[in-house]
Every structure is written in C-alpha cells, then in structure tokens.
C-alpha cells in the first residue's frame, strides 16, 4: 500500500501517493508548471531546468519533473525567485536560438516560442553565437536542423527508450554538446526508420519532416497536371487538432471538401486500399497456414508479420534481415493505391500516368521514405509522388485560408468510392488484425463474424497495451469461398485450429516480440502478428499534430472506432470482403484473384536486408 502525502502547492492542497513527482503533484492540484524537456511519453531527465520550484525548507530550487515528493510539504511555483530563475533559463535558450520564427514550420506550435512569449523573453540583446550546426537534408523523410535544437534530449529519449532504436545520441560536451547520429552520418545512412516519433516530441523546429509542399502547390496550380490525393484514416481523426478542434473530432467528409477547395482533382480513401490489403493478406495468411500446417513447407514461415507500417518494415530490414521471410509480401495500402492510380486508374481515365500527380495524406513520415523505394515504381516513376503529413496539409490549408469549421461534407470520388469500416480502423493499433480476423473468420467458417464477437468488434485486440494477444478457434469450416478457390483445395484441415494472433505497437514492443520469436518463445508458435512502428499505430504517427500523449491518442482511437461503428449504422460495409468497390476490382482487373499474378505485379513487393551499419560500411 503506497503512503499518501499531503502537498500544499501555492496554497492549493492535494493528497497524492508518496513518490509522485512535484510536477505531477502540481498537475493534480491544477497548478501548471512550465516545462520543455518533460514529455508525458518519456522518462524525465531534468535537463531544461525550467520547472524549478521552491521546496519549503530547502535553500536551492528543485526541478519539479524529477523531484519525488516523499513527505508532506509545501511547494511554491510562482515566487519571484522561481519566476526570475525561469526567465534566466529562457534568456539563455533564446540567446542561442536562431531568430527566424516566422519562417519556421513550428511557429505557433513551438513550445520554446510559447514560453518565451509568456515570460516576455525576446531574442538575446547580447546574442552568444555558436558555430552553425549541420542541417541534415539528405534523408527522404526527416530533416535535422540542430541550429534550432535546445538540447532537451526528448528526441534522444524517444529514439532510444520509447522506440528502442538508438539512432540519435549525444556527442561532445560543454558548448559543443550536440545530438548526433553514429559518427555524425546523415540519417539516410544510418538505420533510422523515419518513424518521425522524434519530430512529434521535438519542442521546436529542430526536427521536421522533409517538406515538398512548394512542389505540391506548383502541381496544383498546373492545369496540365491531374492531381489526386488519397487520405488515410488516422490524419482524418487528428487534423482537427490543427484547427482548434478537440482531439478525436471526426472530420473525414469536411476534409474531402477542403481538399477540393485546395485544388485536388480527385479525393480517394486510402481505406479502400486497406480493404484490398485485408483480402490479399488474409489470403496470404491462409495459404501460409496451408503450406506450413498441411504441406510441411516453411519457405514462407509463420507467424506472418504485417507489412503496412513502413517504419516497421524498414526496422526489420535493418535489424532483423533474417526474418524478412515472415513479412507479408503485401504492399502497404498507400502503395497498393499508388500502384492502381498510375496503372488501372490512368487507363480508365484515359490519362498518361506522367500527367498524374499522386499524393497521399498520411499520419506518417516513413511513408515519405516508402514512396521513394525503387521497387515501388512503374517505368521509373514513383507510384506515389508525394506523401504529405497531417501537419503539412494543415499548413497548406492555412496558407490558403481554408479551414474545417463550417465546411460542408462531401464523399470520396469514384471509381474507388468509399471503404468499409474495417479499412478505417487500419488507423489504430490492432485495426489490421481486427479487420483481417473479421474477414478470415467469415471466409473460413462461412458464418458472420458477429457469431464470434459481438457486433464483430474484436475487443481483445483493441486498446493500448504494448503487446496484445488473441486466440480464435475455427470450430467449423465452410466450403472454400469462390474468391479463394484458386488457392486452396478445401478448408477441412483448418477445422478446430486455434489461430494465435498478436498485436504490437511501437518498435520497442515489436523488438520484444521479435526477441521472443528468435529465442523460440511463445510468439514463435503464433500464426499472425500485427506490428505498427508507432505508439498507438498510425494515429500516433510521426506526421500527426503535436502535442501527442496517451490521452490525445486515445481520443483519436475513439473517433476511428466510432467511424467504423457508424458505417454499420448507416448501411455501409464494415468488412473488407463486403466492400463492393473492392469486389468490382477483383472482377474487372485482378481477375486471377488474391495472390494471383496480377495482384503480385501490382499489390505485392519484396524486401531488402539492410543491416545496421549502413553508412559505415560504404
């Protein structure tokens, strides 16, 4: 039983468990203490020294974020001494910060800017110059501008501890202390997976996505270009935050209108391609089960690992190339869609693919890297020309005076139409698993998924536990459905089989699963594992609005699940294999069925073992 202690903070009293930090105690008492290096997702290190408070009976000040309250005491967070100390620290931080806020992507959302404004600290009267820091512009996804770095080390903790990657570290000491990659190599040459979690937690503009919006504005203004955009579900659940809406405000249909106002010629739903992924990956799972359980072949081993998350795919290529055979050969929904747009859609519309600019709205910075993969091109042109993050699109809309309040709703464009509810929940951790299970259960048993899970809500895979497991026993089997008839002779061998599935989000959790798998632990006996590189899945992606926290991510998840539920209530399909547009595509284009040669050419891919020391071994 934890002891409770009573704390008096600026006259407000609160009772908290002993060991709570002074910062959390103040939060509980409703007292706000300014912070920069603190982040709710990260271990506190007390390096910015802004959250200094007076502890009664102590001569000096204490950093609230790291000071544990172990006995009844009084704290002052607003005394002149405290305020002066904070201002002193802010003067130092501003004294070396580049004086170019108006042109910075973070202006208005920068935590340093906000605090400097609050404390009335401008650029230093006597600026202390420091050598110009390297700007890493070589990466396809993440830009590092150390000039704007304030040394809070949130990125380092995010990379090393939250994500278990350790791409960013600290080198040098004194005034030459700097965040650095291994040997100071560009991000493109180390095993960075471009997840962008560091960007999401950077308080300033020192880390930002590679920005190609100027190019996009030019394309939108060019009458010879046919500019289309696909929007993923996670950005739709979050973009409202950029326009003053509460986290989790669903704005999918308003965003469609806004995108047309911005000049896009067509607006498509990435969830359509997610539905396609469910069919292809579901078929791949059943074929692998047949090969491994019936034919005794482990060429395509189990468990099958999902491949929707480009950060995760790159991570596996770098860290664990020996396990690439576990990875589904399915392209991510973005890339399936990109491939269809530059081929089938171009043909249907009678357009030269060279005149189509294919844009995607993604929650993700790794999608930028994915779009540059050489294996995801046709005739030397990328299938997806530009992957735009949620924050970038919001900035573009603001630049054109387009908001989301009082914007009428409108639907997605044909010929892809809309998606199923399953395609929508791809935006949240566990969503791919839930969607795939809905479809696999129905295709195998011939019974509705609702017979197995109330409302077909597969709740065991929902939530934010780092790794979640589910077992589904296929107590009955039906005849082979027509869509799988070319792949399997019958389904009898699956009767009574218990599918063991797991979901992991955040690469730290993924690494734990892979370590267990390598060691022959329980996950080596699993059949299907969903992995998303980012905490929370796509809704917590590196391109999503800041700030991020567990609370914000939970709100976005609620919005996504609500959209799925609404699909059911309004008569739209909730299961990928019931999406009429997807079924039409198999009738008209993918005529040799899931996993067939056409699918493989357009919707599947291959992977590259990369190893860890990319640049050093050049």
């Amino acid at each position: 039983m934890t002891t409770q202690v009573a704390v008096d903070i600026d006259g407000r009293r609160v009772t908290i468990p002993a060991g709570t930090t002074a910062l959390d105690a103040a939060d509980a008492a409703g007292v706000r203490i300014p912070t920069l290096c603190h982040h709710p997702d990260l271990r506190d290190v007390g390096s910015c020294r802004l959250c200094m408070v007076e502890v009664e009976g102590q001569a000096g000040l204490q950093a609230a974020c790291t000071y544990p309250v172990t006995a009844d005491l009084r704290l002052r967070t607003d005394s002149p001494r405290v305020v002066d100390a904070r201002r002193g620290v802010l003067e130092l931080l501003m004294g070396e910060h580049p004086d170019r806020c108006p042109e910075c992507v973070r202006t208005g959302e920068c935590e340093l800017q906000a605090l400097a404004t609050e404390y009335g600290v401008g650029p230093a009267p006597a600026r202390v110059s420091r050598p110009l820091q390297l700007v890493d512009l070589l990466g396809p996804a993440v830009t590092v501008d150390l000039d704007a770095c304030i040394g809070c080390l949130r990125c380092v903790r995010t990379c090393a501890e939250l994500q278990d990657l350790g791409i960013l570290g600290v080198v040098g000491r004194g005034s030459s202390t700097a965040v650095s990659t291994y040997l100071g190599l560009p991000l493109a040459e180390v095993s960075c997976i471009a997840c962008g979690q560091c960007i999401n937690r950077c308080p300033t503009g020192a880390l930002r996505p590679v920005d190609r919006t100027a190019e996009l504005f030019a394309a939108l203004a060019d009458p010879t270009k046919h500019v289309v955009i696909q929007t993923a579900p996670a950005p739709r659940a979050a973009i409202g935050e950029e326009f003053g809406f509460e986290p989790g405000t669903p704005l999918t249909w308003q965003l469609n209108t806004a995108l047309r106002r911005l000049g896009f010629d067509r607006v498509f739903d990435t969830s359509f391609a997610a539905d396609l992924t469910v069919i292809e990956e579901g078929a791949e799972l059943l074929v692998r089960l047949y090969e491994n359980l019936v034919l005794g072949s482990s060429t395509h081993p189990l468990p099958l690992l999902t491949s929707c998350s480009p950060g995760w795919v790159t991570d596996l290529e770098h860290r664990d190339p020996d396990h690439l055979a576990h990875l589904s050969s399915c392209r991510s929904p973005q890339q399936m869609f990109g491939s269809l747009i530059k081929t089938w859609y171009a043909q249907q519309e009678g357009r030269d693919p060279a005149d189509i600019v294919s844009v995607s709205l993604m929650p993700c910075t790794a999608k930028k890297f994915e779009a540059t993969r050489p294996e995801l091109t046709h005739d030397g042109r990328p299938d997806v020309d530009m992957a735009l993050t949620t924050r970038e699109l919001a900035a573009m809309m603001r630049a054109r005076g387009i908001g989301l309040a009082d914007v009428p709703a409108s639907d997605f464009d044909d010929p892809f139409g809309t998606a199923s509810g399953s395609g929508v929940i791809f935006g949240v951790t566990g969503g791919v698993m839930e969607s795939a299970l809905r479809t696999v259960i129905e295709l195998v048993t011939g019974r509705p998924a609702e017979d197995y899970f109330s409302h077909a809500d597969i709740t065991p895979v929902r939530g934010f536990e780092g790794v979640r497991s589910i077992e589904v026993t296929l107590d009955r089997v039906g005849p082979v459905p027509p869509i799988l008839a070319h792949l399997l002779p019958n389904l009898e061998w699956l009767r009574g089989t218990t599918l063991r599935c797991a979901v992991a989000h955040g690469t730290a959790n993924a690494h734990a699963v892979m370590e267990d798998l390598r060691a022959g632990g329980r996950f080596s006996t699993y059949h299907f594992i969903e992995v998303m590189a980012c905490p929370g899945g796509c809704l917590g992606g590196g391109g999503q609005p800041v700030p991020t926290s567990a609370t914000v991510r939970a709100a976005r998840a609620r919005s996504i699940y609500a959209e799925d539920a609404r699909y059911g209530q309004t008569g739209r399909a909730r299961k990928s294999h019931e999406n009429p547009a997807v079924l039409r595509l198999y009738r008209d284009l993918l005529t040799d069925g899931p996993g067939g040669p056409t699918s493989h050419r357009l919707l599947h891919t291959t992977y590259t073992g990369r190893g860890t020391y990319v640049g050093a071994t050049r």
Partner: protein
Amino acid sequence: MTVRTPMTLSAVEAGAGLRAALSRPPAEVVDQMVASGMRGRGGAGFPTGLKWRLAAEADAPDGRRYVVCNADEGEPGTFKDRVLLAKHADLVLEGMTIAGYAIGAREGLLYLRAEYVYLRDSLLDSLRERREQGLLGREVAPGFDFDIRVHMGAGAYVCGEESALLESLEGRRGEPRDRPPYPVVRGLHGAPTVVNNVETFAWATAVLARGPEWFASIGTHRSTGPKLLSVSGDVARPGVYEFPLGVPIAEVLRAAGGTDAKAVVVGGAAGSCVPASEFGRTVSYEDVATGGAFIVLGPDRDLIDVAENVAEFFADESCGQCAPCRLGTVALLDGVRRLRAGNCTPDDVARLRRLGATMRLTSKCGLGQSSPNVFLSLLEHFPADMRVPVGTGGE
C-alpha cells in the same frame, strides 16, 4: 609535488585501522566515524559517518552495496590526492575496506583520473599485496569478503561529481543524475553506495587507528581533523601542506611564502576568490570550504585573466546536459571577454550578475551551480581588475 609539512598520515601504522574496525561490529565502526565529526574531504563536506550510516541502513534489494573511491582529482589547483595515492595508497585502500565492512559491501571501486594513469600499476601492486596478505579478497574477516578494482576515468572534469562518476562507472556518458535519490540510497547499479574522496578514506583509517576523540580534538567544533591543502600559484614554496581545519588563510600564506598575495582562490575553479582584506578568514566548512585547492594570486596578477581562465575551463568542461550550465558557461565566458574589451555597459554587468545567479540556482549539479562563483566574487571584490564600468560597482 613537494610535501611541505610533516604528514600525520605518514605516522599512521598500516593495518591498525582495519584491525580496530574488524574487532567490533560494523555499526560501531559507523559510530566511530560519526563520533570523529569528520566531513568529506572532497569539498562538499557531507558528514562521513552519516553517509556511511545511510548507506548501511538503506534497503539493498539484491543485498549488494558498494564503496567507491573518488580519485578523479580534477579540480584545478588540487593535487593532494595524487600524493596520497603515490605515497599512502595502503591507507586509502584500507579506508575503503573499513567502509566496506561498515556498510556491508563486498566490492569497492577506485575511479582514477585519466591523467593519473601512471599511478595505476603501483595501485594494482598494492592491491595484489593486500590480497596476498589477506587484507582483501575472501574472508578478510569471518563472513566479510571484500575486494577493490581500479577503474580509469577518461578525462572529464564532471566525472569528479559523484553521480556523474557513477554513470561513468556503469559505462555511460558521464552526466550527473537527478538527486534525490542520493547514491547512499541508489548509487552504483542502483545499490546503496558510499562515494568518498581519496583523502576521506585515508583519514578514516586514521580515525579507526587512533580513535575518534583524537580526530575530533583537532580543528574546530564543526570542522574536525587535519586537512591537506594543495598550495600553488604566486608563493615561494608551493606544495602539499597539512593544517588543522580552521587555519586562517593568512597562516597558510605565511607558511608558503605568499604574504603579499592580492587574493586566494580557495576551492579551485568551483571555489571562490578571497581578497587580501579577508585573509583572516579560516579554511573550514563554516567559513571558506575547500576540497584542497589553494591558489595564490600575487600582487601583479590581473585578475580578469583568472576570470577568463576559469570561465574557459567551465565552458569546456560542462557536460552539456542541463541548459543553464551548457549555455550559461558560454555566456559567462563571452561576458568576461566583453568586459576585458571594454564592451560592457552597466546593464550588461547587471545581466551577467543575474546570469550567475540563474546558474547557481538552476543548474543540475555542483559543477554548474559553482561555475559562476569565482566570477561573481571577482566582480564583487575586484571591480577595477574586472573592468566594471564606473558607477556600477554595486547591485
């Protein structure tokens, strides 16, 4: 480095302290240290007996505790630990063993300053001999195993700060930890750990050998025992001196031949600058504390040189972790240079004082907190040397 005064430690019989310790229960050894009134010889002056008691009584989940000897003697102007390690290593190692017995540790680590690598072989020889004599290793006493390893530092000043030293010992960047928890509760590998200065361990051996009353009879009520001072700078006879704590600064200067000094930097770069008018003050925890550095500045010194030298030192040696130290040390150096160039307005001087106050109040560890000390004391006592514009002498 010449030893200028007879050293009490030279007369302490090797082995007597450890025998005395092992002849009584560990708690009584702690009691002896408490009774001696000894405070840490590294400069911070934390009561040694209390530190040992806290470590002995702290909860050790896996039963492990550690004794760490801070031999990262990096404070500018300090060299007395070097003499101890060269000439009295046995007393230091014996003190570590006594501490190990007192707190229930099985392992001791001696963190040796990188520049002292030439002492490593002789230390390893001493350790080998002590093992051969049964003074280290298995069954030093019934049920008491204890051994010591030497761990080399890598040249960072901040690793003399005890929590940064522990980080370095664990193989990470030498950066100070948040405190609380203090090392006595969660130190090396999360276990209760006593970190003491080289000289502290040597005197602990003497305390056990001669009794706490003897030690407490020397010095002042609040600063007991003798203290080694490293006297350097503008004196006729630089070297290591032993004085009882409470000795007036003037007396040290007389002994070393530097009575015409303009000022003395007591405590090194992290200490403070005492002007001639205050030479009646004493070297003691209650007055002018020092880990041993005593840098004498003669009448012809331009003290802004001292200010710049110290500021450069800290700008270079800040570990870079916390903002006020990483940025403040650079801003302070910049300020000193602008003062020298005559480019400071009265407002700028006021800003530099506030900067110093911010660094003292907000820096994470002792390095940053003490880094403006010399600058601020020079500004206060030697405004002319510091080129403070006329009319801004006070606040």
